[in-house]
């Protein structure tokens, strides 16, 4: 479980996060949604330790990040898998080397063991046999899948995904969503996904935290989001005619 308490972060005069608190549970796909500029990415980067909040704490199964020493932080980070918006694969390394990289750095395994693990996760993301390709030779969706493979290769306890569907076609986006959901359940990990893709939110958002102007404006599940009367959430989620109609038909059916 990840527990975020009263998170505050500013950049100069801009107060980005204003006392955000949230709890992200194990085995669930937790989603952080909100408009561009609402503070989602800063929130995620604070949880990852890439930004240091001025006030507030982040606790990973009872381990408060700000109270850990450098070695403990480094150990904690080996338990974190991260899927970046653009994949963030290392351009100069092949798919195999990219996935093997965390293993080489932190796991004391033989080359054969590492290779076995790499092939296992590549099969898990449905990309067997692409070991020797470079990231530039892969499509956007394939790069995301390789990035997921790299994120899970160390058997993480926590998986973070920043806009996993950005730049993908709807079909590939669904494949990525399903993969994230399956991996979360399979490994029983805490998954936190930053997204403003409403398809994803409706499909896999088992817990949703809505941020508005750096504050938590609402939280609930993908079921609750249909019936909420929170104006900010309704305006954000049902801004398109398609989703308005989906909501209307949901109400009609439930009556």
């Amino acid at each position, binding site marked *: 479980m990840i527990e975020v308490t009263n998170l505050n972060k500013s950049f100069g005069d801009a107060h980005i996060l204003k006392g955000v608190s949230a709890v992200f549970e194990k085995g669930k796909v937790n989603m952080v949604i909100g408009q561009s500029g609402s503070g989602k990415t800063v929130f995620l*980067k604070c949880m*990852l*330790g*890439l930004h240091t909040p001025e006030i507030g704490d982040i606790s990973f199964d009872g381990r408060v990040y700000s109270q850990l020493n450098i070695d403990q*932080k*480094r*150990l*904690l*980070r*080996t338990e*974190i898998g*991260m899927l*970046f*918006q*653009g994949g*963030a*694969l*290392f*351009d100069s390394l092949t798919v195999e080397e990219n996935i093997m*990289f*965390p293993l*080489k*750095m*932190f796991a004391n395994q033989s080359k054969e063991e590492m290779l076995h693990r790499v092939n296992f996760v590549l099969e898990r993301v449905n990309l067997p046999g692409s070991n020797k390709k470079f990231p530039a030779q892969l499509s956007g969706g394939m790069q995301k899948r390789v990035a997921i493979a790299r994120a899970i290769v160390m058997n993480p306890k926590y998986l*973070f995904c920043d806009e996993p569907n950005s730049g993908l076609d709807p079909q590939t986006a669904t494949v990525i969503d399903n993969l994230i959901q399956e991996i979360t359940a399979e490994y029983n990990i805490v998954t936190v996904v930053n997204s403003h893709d409403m398809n994803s939110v409706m499909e896999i958002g088992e817990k949703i935290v809505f941020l508005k102007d750096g504050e938590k404006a609402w939280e609930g599940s993908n079921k609750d989001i249909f019936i909420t009367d929170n104006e900010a959430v309704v305006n954000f989620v049902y801004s398109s005619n398609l989703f308005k109609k989906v909501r209307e038909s949901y109400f009609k059916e439930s009556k």
Partner: protein
Amino acid sequence: MNYLEHIGKYFMMLREVFKRPQKWKIFRETLFREIEDLGLKSLGIIMFISFFIGGVVAIQTALNVESPFIPKYLIGFATKRTMILEFGPTFTSIILAGKVGSYIASSMGTMRVTEQIDALEVMGINSLNYLVLPKLIATLLFYPFLVLIAMLLGIFGGWVAGNLTGLFHTVDYINGIQLDFNPFFIKYALVKTVVFAFVIATIPAYHGYYVKGGSLEVGRASTQAVVWTSVVIILLNYFLTQMLLG
């Protein structure tokens, strides 16, 4: 951000760079890759430029000492001194600042804007140490060899130019090369090279690592890296010359 802040941030970066590598095996692999990228791949351009510059120096000296009272061996002497004292360490370093400096700044800048550096940090890797230390060690180890090759090829280029133009004889040129040879000048050149190698690896790394924005900013950082590396090399060249030869 003012200059003092940049200087402070640069030294704070160096503090992270000089930490013990997290995995020696990975460090070794990266070091050899950097020696190839930053050193071996610069060999061709350095050989080409130094050979022709040596030739030009010899021809120009020959054309400017036409007086019968000035001995011809001074052509070889002047070419040798120019190549060892200035062209070898300083001019070669300026060329490398352009070639290697822009490569380091743009590759690290691209890693920054495509979140590859964030990916390293999230994995628990000291990204500065992992990315910059192998580059620094590679340049410190390899550039003295590059400079020695540049010196030798420059002197050789001078001899070839003399033979092709008939402006001086081989015997005179070789006498000039052997005249008043001071081994300290080689040491002086190598000391300068090591200092410049440090600058060539770290200043572009600073500009690339802390870039903010997109591809346009990466381009700007790359240009700034080359400019500042060149400026610092020129300034340090003056102070080192004053200290070592003055």
